[in-house]
Structure formats: C-alpha cells, structure tokens
C-alpha cells in the first residue's frame, strides 16, 4: 500500500508486519512515536502482542531478553541516553545470542541537553556484538526493519540487530512509503537454545576463560557469517518486493576520482552535492555506509576520500574515518559535521569535496583559533 509516513511511523508499521510476541519499551525523544504507535496497534488489536511499558531502558532490554529467551520474537526502540542507560543489557543480549531487534533513533548525548541527530550514541555500542544498519529514507527504515528480524533470527546469525535512523531529520520527516506483507519472508522464530523446562539448563552461568573465549569467538564467527545472510536476505527482498540494498550504497561512483563517505541522512544529502560537483566537472561519487557491523568490504583504491562523521571519539578522531583508515590503509579528508543536529547542506558537502586535504581533519563550522 502506498502512503506517506514519518521514519518513526514506518518503523512501527514494519514491526506490525513482523508480528513480535513481546515489545518492551520506554519512551524517549525522538523515538516516542515508534512506541506510541506500537502501543496503539496492540490496543486496537491490529498487533497481537504483549506490550510491556517498562520503567527504564535497562528494563526494556532486560524484558526483551527474558521474553526472547523463551523463544519468541521481540522488539524495542530507544535513542541516545536511553541506549546509554541500556548499555549493560545491550551487551547481555548479544552474549546471550538473542535475536532481539531494536530501532535506535540517533540523537546526541548530554550535557547539554540536545535532542537532535548524531551517531555517537549507537557508535558507542559498536563493539557489543549487535549488527548495526544505518538508514537514510523512510522507505529504507521500513524495509530494513522487516529484514532485521529475518537476519537476526537466522540460524547462522542469532545475534541482535539495531536499525539506526537519524533523529528528527528522518524520524520526524514525512516521505513516501510503500508498505508490504512480508508473509513467509520472515519465517517463524526457531531459537535452538530457548529455555526448556523439560531439559533444564543453566543460562549465562559462571564460565571459565576457555569456554568464555570460545563463546566470544562464536559471536565473531556468526558476525562473519551474517555478511552472507544479509546479502541473501537483501537479494530475496529485492526479488520479491523490488527494492535492493547492500552493505553500502553507491551513487555515481563508477568513474569517480573522489568519494564522499558517510552514514544516514547526511549521506543521502551528499547525493545532491555529487550532482552539483559533476555539473562543475568534478568526478565525485557518494558511498553511503549502511551496515557498520558487520563492517562492509569496500573498493576504495586510487580515489580521494572525504569522510563525514556525525560522531566523534575524543582523542582519536571521527569513528567512521578512523575505521576506514585502519581497515583499508587509506588517508581520507576527515570532516566532523552535524554533531548535535548541526545543519549541513549539500552546498556544505560540495565545499568539503572542493576544499579536501587528504590526511587532515576538519571540524565544520569551528574556526581553528577557537
């Protein structure tokens, strides 16, 4: 069905189609619309699900863990401080190998209080064992949420998946949305280690170094296998529903001398900048990173790179730029832009490309002498 919706409403609509048995969530700006809409679906009977209005995000993830451990499908959503408060249980969910799906609406961290878009929240969770996808449109938020359940619950993965969408810029923007009925695209959950009272076991018990090490390696092995599961899921999605994605999305990259690399809505904005630059005769392309975990295999050889980070690791650098540097031995022009919802236009992005200085870092809008 063709409609218009905000990013938040699109996520909620996708969750309705995925039919989780338990949703536990705590509201936080700018994620509120997701949980309000799901509560509404449950109240109206459109979604046959237990909605647990928990008293904190820590409890939201704990409740999802408890429910998921019995072998049912679960979902939650959060943002920023909510994700930080949940952090302990975010780790627990992955370690317990539970295919929980969570939407995180990317928002800056206080102080000062700031409710606008930034990626530092979810990037602080990048080492937890969760798969992370970053989306750039309302439709993509919807499609990625549908696919997240199938990927997380796949026997070769059994790891939680986090869908990240930019606060307000995407969560509250209305765009065209085509909804779908996934049908058997998402098979029923079949958790091999679901709690079984007929076969009592200890879960998460005291574990010595050798076994613990093996469990960690098993997470990494599943993370590596998830590359294939994502590809296969996205391919089948494209075949059945007509929209294709990938670990990263290219825009006019084929003959490009310079690539703009970013995540989320800024990367979508970059496509407009690319058209402008092309008109000026600059052969530029945009490479939008979608899956941050597992980290994508990219072909960056022989091009100038302009990496825009809407995040920062203090004392180290832009997290995406540093990740690309260490993984691909490249020397990008690293631009820190958009923190706390800072306005970044396609003109600004075009200027980053024109003024690029490989190997240097620039904080957009901050003069050097401050």
């Amino acid at each position, binding site marked *: 069905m063709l409609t218009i919706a905000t990013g938040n409403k699109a996520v909620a609509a996708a969750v309705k189609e995925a039919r989780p048995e338990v949703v536990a969530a705590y509201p936080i700006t700018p994620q509120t619309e997701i949980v309000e809409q799901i509560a509404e679906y449950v109240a109206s009977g459109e979604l046959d699900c*237990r909605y647990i209005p928990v008293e904190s995000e820590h409890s939201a993830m704990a*409740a999802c863990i408890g*429910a998921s451990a019995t072998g049912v499908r679960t979902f939650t959503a959060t943002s920023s401080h909510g994700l930080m408060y949940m952090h302990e249980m975010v780790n627990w969910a992955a370690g317990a190998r539970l295919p929980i799906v969570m939407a995180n609406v990317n928002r800056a961290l206080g102080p000062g209080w700031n409710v606008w878009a930034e990626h530092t929240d979810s990037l602080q969770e990048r080492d937890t064992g969760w798969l992370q996808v970053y989306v750039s449109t309302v439709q993509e938020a919807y499609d990625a949420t549908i696919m997240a359940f199938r990927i997380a619950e796949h026997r070769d993965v059994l790891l939680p998946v986090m869908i990240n969408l930019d606060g307000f810029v995407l969560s509250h923007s209305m765009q065209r949305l085509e909804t779908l009925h996934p049908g058997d695209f998402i098979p029923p959950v079949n958790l091999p280690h679901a709690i079984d009272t007929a076969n009592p076991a*200890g879960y998460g018990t*005291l574990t010595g170094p050798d076994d613990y090490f093996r469990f960690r390696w098993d997470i990494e092995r599943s993370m590596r296998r998830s590359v294939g599961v994502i590809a296969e899921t996205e391919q089948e999605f494209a075949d059945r529903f007509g929209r294709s994605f990938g670990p990263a999305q290219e825009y006019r990259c084929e003959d490009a001398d310079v690539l703009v690399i970013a995540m989320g809505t800024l990367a979508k904005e970059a496509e407009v900048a690319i058209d402008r630059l092309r008109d000026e005769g600059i052969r530029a392309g945009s490479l939008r990173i979608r899956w941050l975990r597992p980290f994508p295999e990219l072909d960056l050889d022989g091009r100038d790179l302009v990496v825009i980070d809407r995040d920062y690791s203090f004392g180290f650098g832009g997290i995406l730029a540093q990740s690309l540097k260490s993984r691909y031995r490249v020397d990008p022009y690293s631009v820190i832009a958009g923190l706390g919802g800072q306005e970044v236009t396609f003109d600004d992005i075009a200027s980053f490309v024109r003024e690029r200085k490989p190997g240097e870092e620039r904080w957009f809008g901050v003069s050097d002498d401050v």
Partner: protein
Amino acid sequence: MTEIPKEEYILKCTSACAGCPSSIALRYVLKAAGPETVLVVPACCTSVIQGAYPNTAMNVPVYNVAFAAAAACASGMSEAYRKAGRKTHVIVYAGDGGTVDIGIQALSGALERETDFLYICYDNEAYGNTGMQRSGSTPAGARTTTTPGGKIHAKKDLDGIVAAHNPPYMATACVAYPQDIFKKVRKALSIRGPSFIHILAPCPPGWRFSSDMTIEMGKLAVRSGMWILYEREHGKVSINGVSKAALKKPLPLEEYLAPQGRFKGISQQAIDSLISQRDRVAQRLLKEDEGIC
C-alpha cells in the same frame, strides 16, 4: 503437617559455604514450585552456587541476568509464557543487594505492572558474593567490610516498600522454618499477579557465627522480634503464631546479637536504633494484624 515432596531440585555438593542459608531456602522454594519453573537469578551468591558451565546444580532452568535486571527480565519471560498460554512459574531468586539496592527500580516496575511472577529476596543483610560489603539491608551496628566501625544507618524497610505497591500476596519467611517457606511459596504461586517473599538468611561467614548455627540464628532472629514472620494477602496482614508469641515476650536482644561477630563492640546508640526499628515494625504489623488501621 504439609507433605513436602521428596524430589530434589538442587543437587548435592554445590559450591555453597557450609551452613549456607540461601541454598537451604532455595531447596524448599523449588520443592514447592516443582519442575515447571524457571528461576531468574541476578548477580548474587546463587549465581555461584548453581554451578559453573557446562554443569548446573539445579533441576530447573536457571536464567542468569545482570545485577539490576532480574525483575524486568522476569517480566518479559512471564508475558511471553502467558501469551503462549503457559503457566510456567517464573521465580526471581535474588539477594538483598540485587533487591533493596540496585534492583529496586526494576522490582517496583514489575510490581506496579502486576507481573504474574514470584519475587523472592533472600536477605543475608550484606553483599555476600563480593565478600560482605554493606547493603541497604544491613542493620545498624553491623560490621561489614565497608562499615568496619559498624553501620550507621538503619536497615531499609523493603517490606514497607513492597507493601506500598499492594501486591496480592507478600510474606516474610526465615530459613529456620522451612515448612513455612514451603507453604508460603505454594500460596504465592497459586495467586495470579505479583507475589513477593522476603526470606531472612543468617549467613555464617557474613554474620560471623559458627556454620552449624544457621537454623539457631534464624530462630533467635524470630524469637527476639528482629525478624517477624507474617503474610499480607490482599492487604490483610496475619502474623505467624511463632512471631505473635515472640512479640508478646521477645527474647532479650543481647541473645540475638551476642553470637554474631558482626555486632562485636556495637554501640549503645546502634542497639537503641535496632530496638526502635524492631518496635516500630512490630507495632505496625500488630495493628494491621488486628485490623486496626
């Protein structure tokens, strides 16, 4: 007398300390609950006693979860089971640290949402698993590794906090009275919605008494009125006979304090605080028991 099943759900030779009260209590909790039960255990002594991977000392599934998260984890589990039409008992078995301190928010939330589960706090009045640091449940005057001069502040009134949520069933129990534990767990599990049992767990290494004295210490706690056995069912309090008798003529407090190394050299001020807290709780419960309030 209630027939207690012969089935054992805790295997012998666990890593519990000699005279461990929490495993004595858990033995009767599980006998009452039976095999269609999932135990949710946050960080506490039980998370060690249950055995290390790949073994388990329990004959029911034990789900370990982070310190603050037990009641919330149980909420999710209970909702999932009830939606599936399953009556599986979801029982949290948590220490006093995981209940009165770091876990109280999740407990409060689960009670308020009328989660269909049983929350049991076994209370040894300190952080036992990490080597006996003070908890909010440590009584005034008790020495712990973080209150080497004796705790200044009074024991937190966990039961008052839980009662304020008005759960359909709550009770106190004590390791010295295992039949009473059994009966109360059976009753708690027969009631829909949240139920809560607070079990006093005299801890030999923590309280510094001889490990063959666990049951005796529990009896002294009850007879001195320092621990009152009662039930609160749909708001109606009824005090157990043994506690009613004890409250009429409590043993001198000294008889309870003297065998415990943790109270050695306790100040008169701390003793006064213990007595005043005991009397305050006793008077409140006696009034409720008589239906005065």
